[in-house]
């Protein structure tokens, strides 16, 4: 792997940049691997990376039916935070946040992790109570989060309208300063490059069409558009398509896949210093390094694989944005798009074993998966390598839906992820 640095960049600039090679190879699939990962999004690529770096397992293939990072990794609003209420979620997302904090250096790829702060606005007394509950719980879990008065919110993020003229006036907010955003594509590419350099095969345009099982029922490989690929263990990290892939092994999942939309404005000079989430009015917003306002909308109400949602979802989100930030009505929507998010009944992920031997799954991240990418990959790699969950993903079993031990952040706080 050619190391990225200022000096390598400068020396290449004198050379017409002819010396840069591929960031990852384009290998032909081998007949079999120790681990096959189905899905070349951020989570799948991170899993492969940590299998190689932490567990020394490099005979690994990541199979991607399109191009890596082309699903939700490249379609989300890139918010990263760890201020979750329940201990289980807090541990998972804080694990990820700590990995984010050193990720550019670890990968030698600038993922532009920017700790600009995530401010969640409270618009009613119930929000205030709920956010304070988060602040207190986070602090006892070692996660930074602080309560701001509405004036402090305004100071931290000047575009916020804290006047009483809003339909639901801003009463204050909870701020996690270590939270922020990152460059989503770079995360996929950085992990791909790092994994590839350690021998992982990243195989694009390779769609999994079946999961082959032996007489005992154990999974032994995958049928793909590029032939059969054997595997000692298979990790399915297919986000919105998880139900479809797991059905190939006759495993039925507590998942539904919904369209989730987002949009960006035209780029402008810096005007928005942080990330603001407003759950009462259903909106979240930040400004990218390129200058675009990045705005997330909610899910549509029906399941769909179309990567397209209704206009009314978008307009409702912009209603909220313009309500809280009235100076933005003259801004323009430049681009909108949709992803397919897989949602569990308790809105928390499933990371672990399945009823089928050698088949593992990492799914159900709903609307909040991007922020977990490094942590998710790290604990899933542990699970695949050892056959047993890491302490952090142990609570996120498929079995919790039988026992009732749900981890329902949304119910507890009415907080969008």
């Amino acid at each position, binding site marked *: 792997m050619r190391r990225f640095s200022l000096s390598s960049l*400068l020396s290449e600039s004198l050379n017409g940049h002819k010396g840069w090679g591929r960031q990852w190879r384009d290998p032909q699939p081998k007949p079999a691997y120790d681990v096959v990962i189905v899905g070349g999004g951020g989570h799948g690529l991170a899993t492969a990376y940590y299998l190689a770096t932490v567990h020394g397992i490099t005979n690994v293939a990541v199979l991607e039916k399109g191009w890596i990072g082309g699903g939700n990794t490249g379609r989300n609003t890139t918010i990263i935070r760890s201020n979750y209420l329940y201990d289980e979620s807090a541990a998972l997302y804080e694990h990820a946040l700590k990995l984010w904090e050193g990720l550019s250096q670890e990968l030698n790829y600038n993922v532009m992790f920017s700790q600009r702060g995530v401010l969640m606005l409270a618009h009613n007394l119930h929000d205030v109570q709920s956010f304070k509950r988060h602040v207190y719980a986070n602090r*006892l879990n070692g996660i930074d989060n602080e309560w701001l008065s509405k004036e402090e919110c305004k100071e931290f993020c000047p575009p916020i309208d804290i006047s009483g003229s809003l339909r639901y006036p801003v009463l204050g907010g909870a701020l996690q300063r270590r939270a922020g955003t990152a460059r989503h*594509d770079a995360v996929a590419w950085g992990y791909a490059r790092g994994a590839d350099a350690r021998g992982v095969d990243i195989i694009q345009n390779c769609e999994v069409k079946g999961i082959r099982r032996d007489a005992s029922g154990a999974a032994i490989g995958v049928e793909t558009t590029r032939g059969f690929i054997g595997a000692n263990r298979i990790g399915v990290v297919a986000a919105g398509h998880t139900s479809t892939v797991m059905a190939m092994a006759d495993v039925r999942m507590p998942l539904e896949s919904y369209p989730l939309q987002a949009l960006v404005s*035209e780029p402008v000079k810096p005007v928005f210093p942080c990330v603001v989430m407003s759950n009462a009015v259903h909106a979240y917003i930040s400004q990218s390094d390129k200058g675009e306002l990045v705005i997330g909308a909610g899910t549509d109400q029906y399941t769909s694989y179309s990567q397209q949602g209704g206009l009314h979802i978008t*307009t409702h989100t*912009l209603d909220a944005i313009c309500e809280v930030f009235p100076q933005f009505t003259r801004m*323009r929507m430049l681009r909108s798009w949709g992803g397919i998010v897989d949602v569990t009944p308790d809105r928390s992920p499933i990371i672990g074993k399945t009823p089928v031997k050698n088949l593992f799954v990492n799914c159900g991240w709903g609307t909040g998966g991007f922020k977990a990418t490094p942590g998710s990959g790290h604990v899933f790699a542990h699970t695949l390598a050892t056959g047993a969950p890491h302490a952090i993903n142990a609570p996120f079993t498929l079995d919790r839906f039988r026992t009732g031990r749900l981890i329902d952040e949304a119910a507890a706080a009415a907080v969008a992820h």
Partner: protein
Amino acid sequence: MAQPFRLPRGGRVDRTRPISFTFNGRTIEGFQGDSVASALLANGVHLVGRSFKYHRPRGILSHGSDEPSALLSVDRGRGRIDPNNRASVVEARAGLKTQSQNHWPSLEFDVGAVNDLLSPVFVAGFYYKTFMWPRKFWDKVYEPIIRGAAGLGKAPVEADPDRYANRHAHCDVLVVGAGPTGLAAALAAAKTGARVILADEGPEPGGSLLHDVTSEIDGRPAAAWLAATLADLDARENVILLPRTTVFGYYNHNHVALTERVTDHLPGATGTAPRERLWQVRAEQVVLAGGSHERPLVFADNDRPGILLAESVRVFINRYGVAPGRRIVFATNGASAYTCAHDAKAAGLDVTLVDFRTESECGPELGRLRAAGVEVLTGHTVVGSKGRKRVTGLLVAPVGSDGRCGGRRLLPCDCVGMSGGWTPAVHLFSQSRGKLAYDAARDAFLPSVSAQAERSAGAANGAYDLAACLAEGYAAGAAAAASEDRRSFTATPTATGFKPVRIMPTDADPTKQRAFVDFQNDVTAKDIKLAVREGFQSIEHVKRYTTTGMATDQGKTSNMNALGIVAGQLDKSLPGVGTTTFRPPYTPVTFGALVGPARHALFDPIRTTPIHEWAERQGAKFENVALWRRAWYFPRGSEDLHAAVARECKAVREGVGIFDASTLGKIEVVGPDAAEFMNRLYVNPWLKLEPGRCRYGLMLKEDGYILDDGVVARVSQDCFHVTTTTGGAARVLGHMEDYLQTEWPELEVFLTSTTEQWSVIALQGPKARAVIAPLVDGIDLSPEAFPHMAMRTGTICGVPTRLFRVSFTGELGFEINVPSDQAAAVWEAIFAEGQPHGITPYGTETMHVLRAEKGYIIVGQETDGTVTPDDVGLAGMIAKAKKDFVGKRSLARPDVVATGRKQLVGLVTADPKLVLDEGAQIVSDTNQPIPMRMLGHVTSSYWSPNCGRSIAMALVADGRLLMGNTLHVTTPEGFTTVTVVDPVFFDPKGERINA
């Protein structure tokens, strides 16, 4: 001289109506009908901006909405400044102030142009390779610099004084684009009587006919045909013609979104007219006739001001009467530029044409142009341009079949019109999820398989000949209206066809050349090659790595060139590299248009009760609860929340308080099977409840967690009066309807929401009976005849009432249900009657405190969707004998019956004056390391005036086993000590309620 580049004649501008506006403070004169771009060009202004990354001088590339470079800030008055306006689509009008963007200190001298010198470093994706050390520098140093350099214009900083409107419409045929194709389509559809909407983004319908001064249609000049056709359409009542209206989004089931710019082009006050209007059209059929976009040629320094698209040169000359230059070189690989050259020559300009094609590859256009006296160099490539802030010459060279260049020749010029071929505007087709197919003959992706009820026609479908467009449009319009009508048109033949070329061959080192593909994002051909070299081979990867096609024009001029370069590098076919899926919007749309009037009071409906105005007159403070605005407290004099609530709380327990409970949800459950229905839905038993009696009902979701609660009265054998929480009314009714209709359709039950029909006046306190006694008729109010949890019907103040004897305060209390239209009068009568008793109005805050003193839960405060009846100590409500009810099975799941669940308890602080924060966390040991084990959290916490101390309710793990134990609760300053107690703080024996 004003407007030195205005041609002496021609164009559709109104020369009798001069206008002026400013550009960077300089006065620009033009005519009514000019765009800002055409007026700038008329004044000889080509340098209008600086590019995104390298701050290169940039001019006007195009005449339409595909413009990538000429982006201006436009100031229409206070609060009406916005950035990134395309000069080519902003209509010039008096009083505009326009400014160029992205430079410092000035457009002419821009320090940022140093980036241009550093361009060898600032290649595609360079930022992924550096800025990583030292780690802290990213947030503090690198990123702020990158951000400051990025962005184009400046965001508005003031609230927008303009208003925006929203309209929904239905039509039989929506025609997108009012060029020749769209006009023919609209005409054909309109003739059938179909309801037609014809939308065009331009200020004037006509499309290419607006600048076609030589063609004839059916024996008439094109302009005459256009005028006649518009008159015809205008006379038809079934046609809505929308100019200045961009069809920007094609959504599911022919839901199509349009944005109409209503007033931006009008000078002066525009009254109450909105600035823009969002049209959401549900069309039976759609005809896509949005035309096509011209491609630039990719050669070194193809971005200089003065280098335009060839067709745009023609537009400025013919439509606006403006010469973009006096000495114009057209560079092309196809036939259409010859028409442009013809028109330029006819306008008296000095014209040369350079064609990449060989002599034999050219059509009859070649001979015609030469016959008109224009020098044409065939078989030539363009290797570069001269000039800095304005092009001064074009470097061309003959190119052999082996791609080798011959000797260079400099063609001096002050304007270049380039044409790299045409790309049909398939954006909306792609948005509709139709499948595109590559057509090699036209080197374009064309609509192939439709996914919705639409059809493409004309240039948007790859047809470029005028007669063909008209016939295709007519056929599409007729077919969309289910008519067999077809007709042909006679029209002057259009010069069409081109020979695709991705990068113009050059004799220079290509790694040193900057040939721009995406003008706005400064993406060059070598950036794209670098991306491919680094392994980015899907077009989506290349886009994201280089940012090509990601600018405000969304790649309208650049996508095909980028795709072609990638395909060339990989030696693949174009479709092998893939095409990007187009997403809404077609062109940028203001947030304001999308939002419309949905702000402030119209953001969400505000629900108020009949008592609301009375409360306002009393000076009540209000809080938002769901959609309702409820009286929060009633301050007297200078009282704050705490003082008012303390007074109200005392008044209720010592005398009588009056409270507006009208927001409670109410549902009438009626029918022979009503009791059975209630039995299946609630945890409680209902079959034996006698008419005239009430019961506190608890309702679960199927997962066993509490959904809602409320008092239910059995009005008669087959009628229940159900109440719900304020926020839960719609949810509970929906829940009931769902089960009734889909699970138990055999039950004969009818559900009716009566929330708005009944207003509820709660009268609480020892003197409550005395207050209402004189007003009530037909009901024996004595405790024996009318005990707690009873309901009677009668009249109050002569108004029919369902009178509940219930209490959410622990005091003697009544909830007086009266028809809403008479509620205010009854309220005032009771209030007057209560004066001698010191009747005190109280709000939601006092209601909360009083119920907390009694340990009553509020669903949504003590519960959060993860709480079971047993968790909050209400397991006793569950009818043991019932075999089933909604949620029962889930209560038997392993984790729900396990120990360690959080249970409702009371907490009292060691310091009685300290009121805990709601949401505060509880631990048993403050010395444990972080992360600490948390036992639970405070759900409710108040100063209790009646207990003379603070009180709190909390959910604590195994809390009921911890009675009397000491725990620790977080405060803003650290931990404080509390004791676990029973959650009933006041009148624990519950005697007062039976008074």
